């Protein structure tokens, strides 16, 4: 094999697969016992195992999904007409221009929740459950760069939309479903949602970090909608 491949090889007595299966409790008891016994005598394998254990502690972002039923079973239009009034009345739309904040209109964020196979339109303050899937929809009078951020009850910020690091262009329209959904994790409590509508593809990671620190500073040229749901 080439030097380049050899340099990248897993460096332990058993394969990476066997290490992961051991950590996941998938090895048969006799195999697991042999594995443990070997670890006692092998510093290299012990080191590899510790490294994998350390990696397993990394906090993962929320699972994004698009698990909703086909369009025919997803009554966006019928629900949107009724919910639009609620959304318009409930969402606080803040316009940020240099140095000032004021109320504005035109951009709204909606949310749909799938719970045990049933999809409903959610309102601010909605109660949802861990494992529910949520998907956002926006109404915008013009094409706009959109992002959806969240702050969970533990103070962890996430970017629900888009997948990339910058706000993504969404075409003008009414209740345009964003192409990514999110499967909610088990963190209970109130989760704050921030919908950003911007004139340019703003960088999102700095905003996510600011959100965790009590912000964010809304970039010039952006409008923001805020709401929350409660997970229990």
């Amino acid at each position: 094999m080439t030097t380049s491949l050899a340099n990248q090889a897993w460096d332990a007595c058993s394969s990476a697969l066997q290490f992961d299966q051991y950590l996941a409790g998938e090895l048969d008891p006799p195999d697991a016992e042999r594995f443990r016994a070997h670890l006692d005598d092998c510093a290299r394998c012990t080191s590899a195992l510790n490294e994998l254990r350390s990696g397993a502690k990394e906090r993962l972002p929320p699972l994004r999904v698009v698990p909703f039923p086909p369009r025919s079973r997803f009554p966006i239009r019928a629900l949107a007409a009724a919910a639009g009034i609620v959304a318009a009345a409930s969402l606080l739309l803040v316009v940020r221009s240099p140095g000032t904040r004021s109320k504005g209109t035109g951009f709204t964020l909606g949310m749909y929740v799938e719970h045990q196979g049933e999809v409903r339109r959610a309102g601010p303050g909605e109660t949802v459950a861990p494992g529910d899937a949520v998907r956002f929809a926006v109404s915008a009078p013009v094409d706009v760069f959109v992002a959806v951020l969240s702050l969970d009850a533990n103070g962890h910020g996430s970017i629900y939309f888009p997948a990339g690091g910058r706000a993504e262009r969404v075409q003008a329209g009414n209740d345009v479903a964003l192409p990514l959904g999110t499967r909610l994790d088990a963190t209970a409590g109130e989760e704050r949602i921030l919908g950003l509508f911007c004139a340019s593809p703003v960088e999102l990671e700095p905003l996510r970090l600011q959100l965790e620190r009590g912000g964010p500073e809304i970039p010039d040229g952006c409008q923001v909608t805020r709401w929350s749901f409660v997970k229990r």
Partner: protein
Amino acid sequence: MSLDAGAIERLYRSHGHIVLRRARALLGSEEDAQEALQEVFASLLRAPHSLRNATSVVGWLYQSTTHFCLNQLRNRRTGARLLQSSVAPAPAPAHVAGRGGEVLAELRRVLSRLPADVAAATVYHHLDGMTHAEVAGLLGCSRRKVGYLLERAQRSLALLEQSA
């Protein structure tokens, strides 16, 4: 084994790091690795029955991650060809600069040129350190076939090195 959405979410929390670690190694880009993580579990949500015949969840995640990442590498190669035919060469990105970056970039170029089953066998055997029997288990073929695939990889790599 077939899982509901809640169980898949729990599986994501408990096993997602395996996918992320391997995708980082194979793709060399944090953004692409995060995308691989999401795609592997999204595919499970779309088709939870795909785990039905799996004897090992970890093994299934290895297969799914490898399949996704090798596809990504092949797509990058196609994209790079298209770019080269229409725009001037761009400077190498910072993350592939330097000797270590060159080695990794070379590795990914090599994998993107191998047939799918040969590339997968190469990844499992040479990068994950699997025995021929373990590779055979994941690929669903005989150990003899694994030996043949790895020989083909050797020959392909030798040819690529000669032409480089």
